[in-house]
């Protein structure tokens, strides 16, 4: 059983890391988002391996089902979809790489390797945290944070709506063909009248 779990872990870990590397390196934004979804999914599988079934399912529900869809929508709504031909990296990206490598090598690795993981936890062994336990904890010890989190979600909901609906009256309406032609004619006329002031718009 242990060997099987270990093999599954190694496969999942390799996949997660490969997906993470692809997210950071790949050129096409859509591909990056899809690799991100893959890494979310394999992390969810790893939660299942750790017998945290509730968290695993919440991970799939929130990250794969909601956040990734939002990211994909945002990519579709912003243009230059494929991102080819655009400069992707900072000019001095190697400095950033050194900083990240230093963070990993100096801070994280010594911490992980010097801590004595083999020490058994003291106190009685409680059973694995089940969904019921988590629910009870939300209603007893963690009631206040739970309420605060729900208020945060409400605020985020309202905030997102307010931000996204800013230009609603000008954007939402689908024009008829006649209206579009009329608009284009007007735009062309104004361009002919004052070509310098609208130069930035025509460049698009």
């Amino acid at each position, binding site marked *: 059983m242990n060997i099987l*779990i270990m093999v599954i872990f190694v496969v999942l*870990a390799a996949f*997660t*890391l490969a997906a*993470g590397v692809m*997210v*950071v390196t790949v050129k096409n*934004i859509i591909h*990056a*988002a899809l690799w*991100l979804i893959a890494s*979310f999914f394999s*992390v969810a599988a*790893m*939660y299942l*391996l750790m017998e*945290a079934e*509730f*968290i695993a399912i919440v*991970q799939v529900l*929130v*990250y794969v089902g909601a*956040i990734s869809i*939002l*990211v994909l929508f*945002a*990519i579709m709504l*912003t243009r230059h979809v494929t991102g080819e031909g655009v*400069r*992707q*990296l*900072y000019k001095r*990206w190697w400095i*950033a*790489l050194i900083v*990240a*490598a230093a*963070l*990993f090598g100096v801070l*994280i*690795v010594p911490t*992980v390797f010097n801590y004595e*993981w083999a020490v058994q936890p003291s106190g009685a062994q*409680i*059973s*694995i*945290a089940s969904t019921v*336990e*988590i629910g009870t*904890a*939300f209603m007893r010890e963690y009631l206040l944070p739970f309420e605060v*989190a729900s208020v*945060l*979600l409400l605020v*985020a*909901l309202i*905030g*997102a709506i307010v931000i*996204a609906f*800013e230009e609603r009256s000008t954007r939402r309406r689908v024009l008829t063909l006649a209206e579009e032609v009329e608009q284009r004619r007007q735009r062309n006329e104004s361009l002919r009248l004052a070509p310098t002031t609208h130069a930035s718009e025509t460049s698009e």
Partner: protein
Amino acid sequence: MVPVSYYVLLSAVLFTLGVVGVLTRRNALIVFMSVEMMLNSANLALVAFAQRWQSANGQILVFFVITVAAAEVAVGLALLVTIFRSKRTTDIDEINTLKG
């Protein structure tokens, strides 16, 4: 049972990958995704600790992190789309003014 240090190491590598993404890429959406990956790696470590100490607290913390991440994504992406509407770019080098 997989030793908890393996999970912690994996989460550290994922976190560093996220840092690399945030620091090197110029597209705001990819920076965003890298931040999500960093949050995810923190979650992974938390769940590993929760399993190690056999307590529900770690998982509850993960739940809150996921909640905050969802809120962050909703507001952040709305902001990005709005910025794109006015500036026609998602390049974070060019989004450098406070005025819209």
